[in-house]
């Protein structure tokens, strides 16, 4: 492809964006590069010598590349690097900082399901799953990755506007002795103490307690 001159400005802000260990490399186009810029991506396992090219991200025009598969071992740490090409020019390879999937990932809130009886609500929480190469294959819960994972649960009585908080380790919670025919809204957050990580609170799930059959 002839001699390339590497005077193109570098891609900017090259970084991993990770959610539930779905690890996507993202960057911004070189300053003032305009359209038509293509990119190549490589990555390396920290402590191991070789840089490895990602074929699916060779000469791409997008400014992201999914490296989840290549960085799925969360007991390792990684670097990734991007190079830009335009009109026979190229940039230097531009690297990320060291990426530690275990501590640098963000965690989604748990999914919340709520059912009710006349005077109680039952809450079931499900931690998000770790990204997996084969969506059809066996999934791994983040509970497996972070054994000390806990849930903070918020229960709002829509009538009195009072909000209570529960902190639980297992994923089910029954709140008894509630008022019949009252709407309760539940949301939950994941909290990991080491390493210190927490999700946002989930969307609120509201359910009403049933009519009290005993009162005629």
């Amino acid at each position, binding site marked *: 492809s002839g001699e390339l001159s590497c005077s193109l400005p570098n891609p900017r802000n090259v970084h991993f964006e990770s959610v539930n260990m779905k690890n996507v490399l993202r960057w911004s186009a070189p300053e003032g590069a305009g359209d038509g810029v293509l990119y190549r991506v490589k990555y390396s396992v920290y402590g191991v010598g070789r840089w490895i090219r990602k074929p699916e991200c060779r000469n791409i025009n997008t400014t992201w590349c999914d490296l989840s598969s290549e960085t799925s071992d969360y007991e390792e740490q990684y670097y990734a690097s991007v190079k830009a090409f335009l009109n026979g020019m190229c940039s230097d390879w531009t690297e990320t900082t060291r990426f530690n999937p275990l501590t640098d990932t963000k965690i989604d809130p748990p999914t919340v399901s709520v059912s009710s009886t006349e005077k109680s609500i039952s809450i079931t929480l499900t931690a998000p799953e770790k990204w997996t190469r084969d969506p059809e294959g066996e999934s791994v819960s983040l509970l497996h990755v972070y054994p000390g994972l*806990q849930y*903070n649960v*918020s229960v709002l009585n829509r009538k*009195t506007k009072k909000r*209570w*908080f529960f*902190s639980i380790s297992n994923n089910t919670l029954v709140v008894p002795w509630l008022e019949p025919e009252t709407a309760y809204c539940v949301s939950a957050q994941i909290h990991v103490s080491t390493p210190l990580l927490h999700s946002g609170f989930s969307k609120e799930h509201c359910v009403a307690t049933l009519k009290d059959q005993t009162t005629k």
Partner: protein
Amino acid sequence: EDALLPAPQNISVLSTNMKHFLTWSPVTVQGETARYSVEFQGEYEREYANDSWIPICECSLIASTVCNITEDISATVAYNLRVRADVGARRSEWGTLKGFFNPITTSLTPPLMKAIADGYHLLLELEDMGPAFQFCVLYWKKDQESTMWQKLVKKVSSVVHLDTMEGGADYCVKAQSYVEAINRSSSFSQTQCLRAQGDRSMWL
């Protein structure tokens, strides 16, 4: 030749609830303002780093006679602390804390708390005393101290649900703060009692 500037005196540490402050008496020089600088030294510095001292930038040439040393005095080891004064071009010797300070000796106070009865539910509002703190909460049916329930509240979020209560019964609650890093607890708070629904909830 100017008289030697005296080193700061009465250097001491005020430490409550894992917040540590170094204080000293002012060095007074007629018509001039003294400025003070603080340094610290942990056991690591004494044993492994040639007895070196580390300056606290936030307390470098300050006019105040108080320095918040919480951020630096974070391990459960014995720390040395020292202060010196500068007035104009003159500089005093270091005044050094008598003895060591170890965060393990901090004084712990019980948390501010408010017990709440919401229907049949016993709830607790607790003061947020910082990330190092957990709370041991005891609650029991009034006049039945022999049967107490205990709950460890690790993370304070406004109103913590303790338990459900028997209709119309009186319950009492007290709490103490606990710091796992130093494995120590405060004394218990005042006891608060209240009544579960079945009657109008009221303080007793």
